[in-house]
């Protein structure tokens, strides 16, 4: 019933607020820098995966090239900062806008492709982006850009002595991406996206503007991912093409959503909460020699999930006869 539906939406919002509250308090108890680092990355990837989920999960346009938008966010912010002295806060917005525009520019030809062809196109485009930045001297080429550190500053969003500001920003990004998804889920766009994913022909016959639905999803998704990229650049304070635009970022945005439940509100958060700590811990444990062990771990996880629970971990909790969206 409709009241039940409204109650479920409210319940989701309350759960999210409680979880965010708990997350906000963790730094009081967790003083270990390594663990804090893992928490920051987990929150960041949760937010990124949530953003990826808008285009690929809800609208069904599977992208394995979102590293491009991540990198564009990072590069736009740092180029503006190092070359023109523009504060990262503005750079972040600029990066988001640039990415959204590029996503729509790319969508124009590529949203005509369906299924696997679209996926292949996204991979290729992201690789081209990577190569361009590798050879673009003004942007530091393969050497990358080192962000000049002038001490702790909110204005320049850089901190040496503490990781807490990064933690809260990552938390805010994660909350923002979640909230945007929550909000869009019960909107015309949300319904259009799911219709486009399930059956574009039927959607068209019901007055859905299929092409613009995809464009809208791409723009929102790319914008949020680029903000994540800007944040990451500030967080690590050094970027080069490989470290912000490498293929692994595309994977790390897709995998949490796939693991948790693609096209669901909670899937990306759940997936990231499991996957990212696991990845980081194995990487930490095996050090330099273990590069690749993390890949083995989550590769195995994904294979198991797609075999046993193709709709993700969340389907374990699903009440298919009752729930509104596939969650």
């Amino acid at each position: 019933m409709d009241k039940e539906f409204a109650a479920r939406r409210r319940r989701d919002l309350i759960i999210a607020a409680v979880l965010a509250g708990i997350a906000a308090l963790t730094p009081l108890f967790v003083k270990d820098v390594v663990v804090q680092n893992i928490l920051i990355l987990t929150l960041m990837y949760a937010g990124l995966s949530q953003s990826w989920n808008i285009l690929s999960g809800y609208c069904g346009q599977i992208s394995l090239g979102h590293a491009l938008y991540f990198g564009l966010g990072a590069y736009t912010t740092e180029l503006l900062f190092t070359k023109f002295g523009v504060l990262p806060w503005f750079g972040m917005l600029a990066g988001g806008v640039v990415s959204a525009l590029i996503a729509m520019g790319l969508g124009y030809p590529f949203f005509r492709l369906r299924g696997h062809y679209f996926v292949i196109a996204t991979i290729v485009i992201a690789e081209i982006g990577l190569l361009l930045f590798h050879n673009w001297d003004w942007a530091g080429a393969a050497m990358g850009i080192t962000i000049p550190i002038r001490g702790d500053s909110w204005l320049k969003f850089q901190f040496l002595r503490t990781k807490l500001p990064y933690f809260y920003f990552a938390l805010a990004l994660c909350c923002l991406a979640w909230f945007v998804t929550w909000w869009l889920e019960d909107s015309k766009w949300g319904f259009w996206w799911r219709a486009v994913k399930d059956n574009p022909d039927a959607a068209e016959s019901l007055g859905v503007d299929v092409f613009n639905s995809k464009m809208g999803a791409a723009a929102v998704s790319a914008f949020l991912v680029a903000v994540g990229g800007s944040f990451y650049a500030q967080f690590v304070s050094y970027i080069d093409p490989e470290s912000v635009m490498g293929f692994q970022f595309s994977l790390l945005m897709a995998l949490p959503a796939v693991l948790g439940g693609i096209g669901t509100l909670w899937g990306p958060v759940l997936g990231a909460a499991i996957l990212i700590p696991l990845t980081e811990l194995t990487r930490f444990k095996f050090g330099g020699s273990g590069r690749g062990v993390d890949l083995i771990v989550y590769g195995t996880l994904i294979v198991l999930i797609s075999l046993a629970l193709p709709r993700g971990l969340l389907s374990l909790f699903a009440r298919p006869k009752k729930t509104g969206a596939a969650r």
Partner: protein
Amino acid sequence: MTALLETRGVWQRFGGLVANSDVSISVGRGEIVGLIGPNGAGKSTLFNLIAGVLPPTQGSILFDGEDVTNMPAAARCQRGVGRTFQVVKSFETMTVIDNVIVGALVRNTVMREARRKAREVLEFTGLAARADVLASDLVPAEKRRLEVARALATEPKLLLLDEVLTGLTPTEAQTGVALVRKVRDAGITVLMVEHVMEIVMPLVDRAIVLDLGKVLVEGKPAEVVRDPKVIKAYLGDRHAVGA
């Protein structure tokens, strides 16, 4: 009053194949018109041209006094053309009501209103009890009904039904017939493609018979079924002699 739908000299060629040749038909407001004909007569092609899946090779299509020949499907839906698909195309990962809400969003931008409209349509089509079930869990007859419900939620002036009564049990088909009558009584014009003659003929006000891409005969169902040309096209020469 002008016809609600009119096709003027419509041709459709697929490579060397002529699917529709010089088809001119019209559908008046408030009518139930049956589009019938043997397999390969070009019914589905004509249907798709009217729904806006593709533009005709030649000729024009007028809807509600407006030339919609080259208008895409989504825009036609906004003008008031609703359709169902012969092979059902439900949004499988969405619930029944969510499926219908997608249609309702054409005329209701506020979610609450779209949801109310969807409820209303589910009541009307007898699917209310199944509102919160995933579309993929429906039985075939219910999926057909959902196709109709979704199209009705767009508040069409013209509803195009593509073989909604085919492949149903006699009881299911009878409830389907009752639903089509109810739709017409709600003031919606219906153009239906159908195979099952004994169900369609008592239902429609007028029948248009296509054969080999052309309009063969057009008229009252009782006259059409007795027309030797129709019997010949449909059932073969042997029966035509018998008539």
